């Protein structure tokens, strides 16, 4: 071997080896299973290939609840990942624990990245922010409840998708029932028929600014508008204007996918899945509202989950996390995520890109969620922040199911939810030293 080749070989080896040594490895725990998980892995692989300073490893941790619990357990053991995906209902737990996360705004600014909260879509902006409007979690898979409908079913019945619940109960539902369809199902009672009910009608959901201002919170489960909505929903179920198949998401989505149910209130993030499972033409529209409650319906807020940068890592690793967040919120990646899954793009720039690429001309239904998130905002459309909220949702599901089954009366069901939820909120305040 000549001296030259040897030198060249050494140079080549060191060129290959140096970045490998300098690479920062970060870990990302998420709850995206199935095809969503494939897309997450794809994003991670693309990110790793796009640069050579950071190597990210995504780890699937099960359901949202399981991911949060593993994250907490790991944190207590001092082995937390750099990034943890936490869902909407768990937001108060992770944001409340002040030392557990590095606010995404601080993380990005410290890393020298441009951060402007105004770059984010209106309905997404403040959901994972604190009382001062500092963004704590990076909105990742964001969706909002929308109404899907079976185009052929509505044509057969000679109706269009209802804009208001009044129209639904007097025109749409009777016609659809007549045509042999179950007019409507919904897949998430707390999210669609409670939380977003308040937002859509611009009603206050909880005291202390929907919970954003502190932990001394009580929930407005005695809202007459909400109770009236539930009384109406039960009467629809009873007279065959609506179906109710259980508290689980799939129970109510399956009959729509099978074509028995004409309209389904689901998530804007269900779009990608529906394209694969539904063999009929479907479209989507805004979540209906009660004209009797408001003549100016407002935007809904997001569900889904956010990515939190967990504390206790070196500056180097935090910078690596920041780099991944920057990559993740770039318009191209957001558009790819939006296109493949149906979750909304979280930034204005990504939305513009999707529009200019003609995505919505091809799939008009894919735009409904993001349009609904940009409807006029109101005082109570930002979101909510309540602790032990997973349990509060469980209480809601339990009492709503009992009410719809005819086991308890409306007033009793709502009184139970209010009592138990307020008690949970008070207990959560205690855990926070409140």
């Amino acid at each position, binding site marked *: 071997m000549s001296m030259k080749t040897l030198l060249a070989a050494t140079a080549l080896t060191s060129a290959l080896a140096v970045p490998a040594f300098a690479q920062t490895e970060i870990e990302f725990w998420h709850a995206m299973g199935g095809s969503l998980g494939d897309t997450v892995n794809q994003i991670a692989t693309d990110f790793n290939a796009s640069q050579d300073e950071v190597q990210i490893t995504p780890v699937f941790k099960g359901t949202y609840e399981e991911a949060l619990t593993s994250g907490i357990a790991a944190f207590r053991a001092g082995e937390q990942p750099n990034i943890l995906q936490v869902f909407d209902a768990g937001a108060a*737990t992770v944001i409340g624990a002040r030392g557990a996360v590095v606010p995404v705004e601080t993380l990005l600014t410290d890393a020298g990245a441009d951060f402007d909260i105004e770059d984010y879509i209106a309905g997404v902006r403040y959901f994972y922010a604190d009382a001062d409007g500092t963004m704590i979690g990076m909105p990742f898979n964001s969706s909002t409840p929308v109404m899907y409908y079976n185009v052929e079913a509505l044509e057969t019945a000679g109706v269009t998708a209802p804009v208001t619940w009044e129209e639904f109960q007097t025109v749409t539902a009777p016609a659809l029932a007549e045509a042999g369809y179950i007019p409507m199902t919904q897949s998430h009672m707390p999210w669609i028929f409670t939380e977003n009910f308040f937002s859509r009608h611009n009603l206050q959901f909880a005291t202390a600014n929907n919970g954003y201002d502190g932990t001394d919170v009580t929930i407005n489960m005695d809202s007459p508008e909400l109770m009236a909505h539930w009384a109406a929903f039960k009467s629809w179920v009873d007279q065959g204007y609506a179906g109710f198949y259980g508290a689980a998401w799939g129970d109510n989505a399956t009959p729509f996918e099978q074509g028995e149910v004409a309209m389904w209130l689901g998530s804007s993030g269900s779009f990608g899945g529906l394209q694969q499972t539904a063999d009929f033409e479907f479209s989507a529209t805004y979540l209906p509202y009660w004209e009797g409650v408001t003549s100016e319906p407002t935007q809904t807020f997001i569900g889904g989950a956010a990515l939190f940068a967990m504390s206790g890592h070196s500056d180097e690793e935090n910078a690596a996390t920041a780099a991944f967040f920057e990559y993740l919120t770039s318009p191209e990646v957001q558009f790819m995520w939006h296109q493949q899954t149906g979750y909304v793009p979280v930034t204005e720039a990504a939305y513009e890109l999707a529009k200019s690429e003609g995505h919505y001309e091809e799939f008009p239904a894919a735009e409904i969620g993001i349009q609904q998130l940009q409807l006029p905002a109101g005082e109570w459309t930002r979101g909510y922040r309540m602790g032990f909220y997973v349990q509060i949702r469980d209480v809601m599901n339990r009492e709503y*199911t009992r009410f719809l089954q005819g086991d308890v009366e409306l007033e009793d069901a709502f009184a139970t939810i209010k009592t138990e939820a307020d008690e949970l909120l008070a207990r959560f305040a205690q855990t926070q030293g409140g």
Partner: protein
Amino acid sequence: MKRAAFNHRLLPVALLVPQIAIIAIFFYWPAWTAIQSSFYLEDPFGFGSTFVGTDNYTRLFASSEYLKVAQFTILFTVIITVFALGAALLLAVKADKVLRGARTYRTLLMWVYAIAPPVAGFIGVMLFDQNIGPMTDLFNWLGHDYRLGLNYMDTAFAMTITSIWIQIPVNFIFFLSGLQSIPQSVKEAAMIDNASPTRRFWETTFPLLAPTAFFLLIINITYALFDTFGVIDTIVYGNPASNPMTLVYKVFVDGFRGNDIGGSSAQSVVLMLLVLGLTIFQFRMLERRIHYT
């Protein structure tokens, strides 16, 4: 009686250490931690905890939901124990009498034992599924609108049936071997003395089976209280809603789903006391009546 003696003092200690260490690490230590945290309300991430005295306990017993779960657990345990033991005993007595193809017959009866609880729970879910379940069709045909996951009683029914079904083979194996260990001479003597097969069973066979039955009673109660977790989890997975659940499942739901560490610790302490009480009762009251040969 021959008395075994060690020729070194430390040898028995050394032999005991692994066992004691295992018990200490996997039982005493967690149990102690549970008792401790049941008096606190703690931030899930471990940042702050507030001493709340017996609040977590008083809250439990004031909660109608908790009492409802406790009531369900007791009923669930009694039903499972009675039916799983009863059915297995009947099958074992009958299988004991089969002469032709006995081996195949017994193997078939034991087969279910090889199924893991979550898998069995999943089979249960499929059988009772709203859209595709044959059991649902059967109930609808009989005129009952069966709704798994929606109707409390319907869900409880599916849980109970599935749990009993899995437990029968275990009981069957033990009962069958118990029956086969009864000496032929005793059986023949009973036959000479007594004409009625029913009286023969209750007066000779059953008392001789009592040690086996007592052992199985404990195993079955423990099974219904704790090991039905897999079945329940598969049936209510992700959405407890208004579905029935047992005390153990509630500890899991509040602790691991809801991150309420203080509350679920209090529940596990209650459960610990319940099991302790039950064990004392079983050994004090029941075991005395049993004659071991």
